[in-house]
C-alpha cells in the first residue's frame, strides 16, 4: 500500500469559500448603509433558496448532502447574485435567479467543480433577459436620495410590491450612470454636460463608488490570504482601463474617462469576486491574463456599444466558453522541455 504523501497542509474548500464570504462583508456593510437594509433581506432570501435547491438537487442526484452544503459554494453563488441585482426588487426575482443558477447552471452540470459557467452570472443573465425593466431599475443611494425608504418600507416592497402611499417608484429609482451616459450620448449630449448630473459621484456613480472601494478592500484581503492571485483582477481592470483610456484619448467628449469605468457598474466587484471563480475560469497563469483581459474588453464594448448598461455577465459567460481553449494554449513550459 502506498498512499504518500502522508501530510497535507491546505485550507479546506469550505474555509476558502468562507473567506470569500468574509471578503464580501465590507462591501455588504457599505451597501446596506448607503441603500438601506433591503439588501440584507435579499441576501437571506438568496441564501435560503440556494441551500434549499442545492439540497434537493443533491438528494435527487443521490449525492451526500451534508458535505456539499457545508462547502458554502452555493452560498457564494447566492450572495454574488443578490449583490448583482437591484436592491429593490420583488422577492421572487432573486429566488428565480438563484434557483436557476443552482439547479441549471451548477447541479445539472454535475455540481461543485463541474460547472463550465459562472452560476451567478448565468442567473444574472437569465434575469436580465427575462425581466429587463426590473433589472435596470436601481434606486439612488438612500443617503443621497431625497426620498428615503425605511427598512420596513423596503421589506414591504420586496414582498408585496407596495410602497408607502406618498412615494412613487420613480422617485426612488433612477438610471445608473452607465445607463444615463449611454442614453444621453445618444441624444448628442457631450460628456461635460452629462457628468454634472447628480447621479455622478467623485469618480464613479454616486454611492456605489464607495461600495466598489469596499469590494476592493475585500479583494485585497483575498489576495493577501492567497485565495486569489493578482492575475485576474489586474488583467480585467487593466483591460477596462486600457480600452476606456484609448477611447477617451481619441474623443473625451464622447467617452468617459478610465477611472469612471473602473468605479462604475460591476468593474471592481467582478474583478475580485466574479472572475476569480476558479471552477469556471482558466488555471494557467497566462490563461488567467488572457481570460480576464478578454472579459474586460468585452465588458467595455458592451457598455459603450451594447444594448445593456453593463456587460460583465455576458463577458464572463463568453470567456467561460473559451476556458478549455485558453488552458490548452497557455500550458506553461514543463521543466527541462524546450524553451
Amino acid at each position, binding site marked *: 500500500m502506498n498512499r504518500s*504523501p502522508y501530510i497535507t497542509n491546505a485550507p479546506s474548500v469550505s474555509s476558502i469559500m468562507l473567506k470569500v464570504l468574509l471578503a464580501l462583508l465590507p462591501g455588504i456593510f457599505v451597501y446596506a448603509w448607503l441603500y438601506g437594509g433591503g439588501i440584507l433581506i435579499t441576501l437571506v432570501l438568496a441564501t435560503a433558496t440556494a441551500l434549499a435547491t442545492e439540497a434537493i438537487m443533491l438528494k435527487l442526484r443521490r449525492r451526500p448532502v451534508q458535505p456539499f452544503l457545508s462547502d458554502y459554494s452555493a452560498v457564494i453563488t447566492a450572495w454574488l447574485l443578490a449583490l448583482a441585482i437591484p436592491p429593490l426588487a420583488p422577492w421572487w426575482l432573486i429566488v428565480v435567479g438563484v434557483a436557476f443558477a443552482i439547479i441549471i447552471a451548477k447541479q445539472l452540470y454535475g455540481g461543485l467543480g463541474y460547472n463550465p459557467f459562472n452560476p451567478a452570472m448565468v442567473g444574472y443573465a437569465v434575469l436580465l433577459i427575462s425581466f429587463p425593466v426590473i433589472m435596470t431599475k436601481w434606486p439612488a443611494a438612500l443617503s443621497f436620495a431625497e426620498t428615503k425608504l425605511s427598512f420596513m418600507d423596503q421589506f414591504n416592497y420586496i414582498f408585496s410590491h407596495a410602497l408607502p402611499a406618498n412615494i412613487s417608484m420613480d422617485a426612488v429609482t433612477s438610471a445608473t450612470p452607465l445607463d444615463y451616459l449611454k442614453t444621453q450620448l445618444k441624444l448628442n449630449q457631450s460628456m461635460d454636460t452629462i457628468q454634472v448630473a447628480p447621479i455622478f459621484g467623485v469618480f464613479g456613480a454616486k454611492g456605489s463608488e464607495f461600495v466598489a472601494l469596499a469590494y476592493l478592500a475585500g479583494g485585497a484581503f483575498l489576495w493577501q490570504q492567497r485565495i486569489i492571485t493578482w492575475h485576474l483582477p489586474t488583467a480585467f481592470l487593466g483591460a477596462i482601463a486600457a480600452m476606456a483610456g484609448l477611447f477617451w484619448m481619441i474623443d473625451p467628449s464622447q467617452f468617459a474617462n478610465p477611472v469612471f469605468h473602473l468605479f462604475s457598474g460591476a468593474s471592481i466587484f467582478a474583478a475580485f469576486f466574479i472572475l476569480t471563480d476558479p471552477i469556471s475560469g482558466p488555471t494557467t497563469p497566462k490563461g488567467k491574463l488572457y481570460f480576464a483581459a478578454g472579459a474586460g474588453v468585452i465588458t467595455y464594448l458592451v457598455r459603450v456599444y451594447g444594448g445593456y448598461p453593463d456587460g460583465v455577465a455576458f463577458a464572463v459567460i463568453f470567456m467561460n466558453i473559451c476556458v478549455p481553449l485558453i488552458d490548452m494554449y497557455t500550458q506553461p513550459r514543463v*521543466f527541462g522541455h524546450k524553451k
Partner: protein
Amino acid sequence: MNAPINIAGLLKKTKDVFNFHGGVHLPEHKAQSNQLPIGQLPLPDQLVLPLRQHIGNMPKVKVAVGDHVLKGQLIAEAEGSVSAAIHAPTSGTIAAIADAVLPHPSGLPDRCITITPDGNDTWIERHPQDWRKGDVNTLVNSLRLSGIVGLGGAAFPTQIKLRSNRSPIHTLVINAAECEPYITCDDMLMRERYDQVVHGIEVAQRLLGAKNIMIGIEDNKPEAVKAMQAAVENTDIQVKVVPTVYPSGDARRLVYLVLGKEVPQNKRSTEFGVQVFNVATVLALYRYFEFGEPAISRIVSMTGNVNQAQNFEVLFGTPLRHLVKAAGGAKADTSHYIMGGPMMGFNLPSEDVPITKAANCIIAASSTLFEPPPPAMPCIRCSRCADACPVSLQPQELYWFAKSDNFEKAQDYNLFDCIECGACSYVCPSDIPLVQYYRYAKSEVIALDKAQEAADLARERNEFRLARIEREKQERTAKHAARAQGAKAAKVAGNSDSKPAATDKQAAIAAAIARAKAQKETDSAAPKNTTEMSAATKAEIAETDSRRVAAGLTEEKSPAADNDKQAKIVAAIARAKAQKEDVSKVSVSGDDKTTKPVVDADRQAKIDAAIKQAKVAKAEAGKEKTSGNNDGQLMVDADKQAKIDAAIKRAKAAKSAALTAKNKEDN
C-alpha cells in the same frame, strides 16, 4: 585579468542558486531525530537479506544453507549488467534461503538469505585499494563486488554510474539536500563523518574525472553546512547552501538549484556532463576502497512515534523490530511504519521486515501524527497544485485525464514528467490523492504498451507460422518430386539404396556442425521476430530454404526470415550440401562414369546459386538495417516488404544461377 572575465565571475556570484518553479515548504520535524549522535545497534538474533535490495537483476546466490560465512563475505554476486552484490553483514551461519516479506510497497514476499550471527563479528580478509593512484578502470570494475547502491533511496547500483562507457563528466553534484521531513541520516553523517565524506567525494571525483564539484545542502542544516565547509577548506569542493524547499533533494531539481541546468525527465544528467551522488553513497565508496569494506550497513533515521528518535548505523538485514527497540520502543498508539519520508515513503507490511540498502528513514506512524485524509471533494480548479508543481505540470488536468482513463491526453500533458513528489497532493484543498491518480495512469499506460507489444509479437509469430506451414507443404511436394527423380536416377545407375543412406548420415552430421557454427557466429545479432524460436527451428527453416534453393525449386513467395544470419546459415548449409554431394559422387563414380560430370556441374551450380543467394540476402539485410531503425507499425510493414523483396530477389538469383549452370552443363 581582463574585464569580461571578472564581470562573468561577478554575475556568476550573484546567482549562487537557481530557484525552481513551485515546491512547498514543509514542517520539518528534523529536530526530533538529530539530537543524539549516530547510535550502534547490538547484533540481532537473525539477519534477513533480501536478494532484491536494488534496482536491477536479482543477484546469484553463492552460498548454501548451513554454510558458515564471515563478515563482508560475498553471499550473492551481481548478475547481468544492472545488479548489485550482497555481503554477509556479520559472521554466522546461513540459516535459510527462502521467501520472506520485503520492505516494498507491494508487500509481497521475495527471496531472502537468512543469517544466524555467531556473535564473533569476524571479518573476512579485506583488500583495500589505492584509489588515489590505482587504475581507474580496475577500481570501477572492482565495484561490481562492492554491493554499493545509491543510498538516497533509489538504490541504483553505483558501479553503473561510474562505468567508463558513460558520457564525459565535468561536474559532480553531491546530494545532501535531504529535503523530506523527519529524515536526518545525511545530516548526522555530515556532522560526524565529514572527513570521510570529503574523501568519498574525492574518490568519486577521481573515478569520474570531474573538475567541478559541489555539494548541495538545504539551509535547515546549519551544523552540517558548517562541518562540511570546514572539511572542504583545502579542496576544490564547493558547499552550496540551497533554500529549504521540497523537493530540492530530487536530483534534477538539485542540479538546477546549483547549476541552473534543466535536465528533462527522459534524459540523464550525465548527458549534460553532470553526475549526482548521494552523500552517503560516496562515503560507502571511500570505505570500500580505503578499507576494503563492502556495503553491509547504512545509517537509518528511526523517528516518528518512538520514545527516543535517533539515527543508527544498521546492518542490512536487521529486522525493523530490533531497530524500533533500540529507539526506546514505539509508543502505544503506533499503527504502522513508514519507510522513507512522509511525502514519498510507503507503508511497511509489518514490523518484521528487514532494513535494506534503500531504507534511509523509518517513521513510526499513528493516526495523530498522520491524520487520515478527509474524503476527497471535487477539484475546484484552484490551481494550487500547478503553483506547487516543481516540474511545471498541470496537475489538475492530469488528474482529470487520469480519472477519466484518458491516458493519451495525460501523456500529451507530460504525465511521465511527473516525479511523484506529492507537492500537489500536499496543497490540494479538496484532499484529492493526486499522486495516486498519476501512479495509476502511469502503470496503466505501461501495461497497455506491454500488451500492445505482446500483441505485435503474437501477430508476427502467427504470420511466421503460416509461412512455415506453407513452406513445409511445398517442401513435401519437392521431396516427392526429388524422390521420383531419385528413383529414376537409381534405375539408370542400377545402384542399391543402402550406400547413399550411410553417406546421407555423414552429410547430415556435417550439415549440423555447419549449422551450429553459423548459429554461434550470428547469435548476438538475432533479429526481433526470430528471437523466440529455438536454434533448431531456425536451422530447420534455413535448411529447408537452402534445400529448395539448391534444387532450383524456389517459389517467388517465400517470406523467410531474411538477414545476414540467415544468409550465413544458408551458405554453410550449401557448403555442407556440397560435401554431401562429394561423398555421393565418390560412391557413384565407380559404377557409372557418365553421371560424374553431370553431378559435378550440378554441384557447382548449386554452390554458385547458394553463394549468390547469400550475397543478395546479405545486401538486403544491410539495406534493411540502414533504411531506418525507428520502430512503429509503419516500420513493421516496411520490414515485411523488404523481406518479401529480398526473398523474391533471392529466388530469382538462384533460378538464374541454376539456369546458367544448366546451360553450361548442356554445352
